[in-house]
């Protein structure tokens, strides 16, 4: 790998996510014009990321969502019982 290629790699993630500064973008694009290997790397990564984002882009199954809601409701119930028991113990200690 050439030194010029190594120099742009650190900023490549920001560039791919469109978050690199204008200065960094210009530097990378200037390099890509003259480097087929890096251009292919960038093109392939864009493709991989786009395809992978589409894959499994599903919402949580309704049944799972309801199940978790029930589990958390049980947790709230347990917490509430623990708090009540705690304050009863505290009252008894005061007496």
């Amino acid at each position, binding site marked *: 790998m050439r030194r010029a290629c190594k120099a742009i790699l650190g900023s490549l993630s920001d560039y791919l996510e469109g*978050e690199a500064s204008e200065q960094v973008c210009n530097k990378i694009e200037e390099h890509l014009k003259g480097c087929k290997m890096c251009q292919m790397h960038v093109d392939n*990564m864009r493709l*991989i990321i786009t395809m992978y984002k589409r*894959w499994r882009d599903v919402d949580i199954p309704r049944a799972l969502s309801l199940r*978790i*809601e029930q*589990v958390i409701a049980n947790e*709230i119930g347990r917490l509430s019982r623990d708090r009540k028991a705690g304050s009863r113990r505290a009252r008894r200690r005061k007496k």
Partner: protein
Amino acid sequence: MQTLKQDLHSASTCADCSGGVMVATQKVSDEALVKRAKRGDGSAFGELMRRYQNKIYRLARRMTQTDEDAEDVVQEAFVKAFRSLRGFREKSRFSTWLYRITVNLALMKLRKRKPEVVSLDEPISTEEGKMHRELEDEATNPLERLLERESAEVLDAAVEALPPAYRAVFILRHVEGLSTEETARILGISVAAVKSRLHRTRLMLQQKLFHYLRSQTKRR
């Protein structure tokens, strides 16, 4: 129990039940909901769950690659978040904290699994029996053709073959679109380590896909 469930599933915070009321509650920040939930407001935690359940499910599904493990991870993540909420010091965003819990649970799940060898060269099952994936002639961009034809299954196998720590970095940074800094905070590593892992991940992914492409070309 009914009261508790109603509390958690408050109509004022549920998109399915509330209609217009939701518009008003959308303005409530995560921070405010966290404070209310810490004081024991079940409906506030319910709203946080509804805000993040799809994102957390997708993250868990992509990390674990199976529906069953993803469901376990999501449930465990919300229970853990609920139980640990009082200890959450709010130095980071709630979403970062929740992502961190989820990623750690997913990594634990992956560690418990027996080591699997995932091969992109494995034949695919069809109605006519098992067959090897074939590539078309005249591939101008072989990777593009491969992904178009076989869509994400090949890509899924390539991501699955990544070591879990690298898979996490790739998913958080490039799929979930989190910043490098946020990815570092979630994984508890430095920004430099995120960048370095991302670079290695990109190379591993492309290497695996091109290795697969080459093996298919040789078969023809």
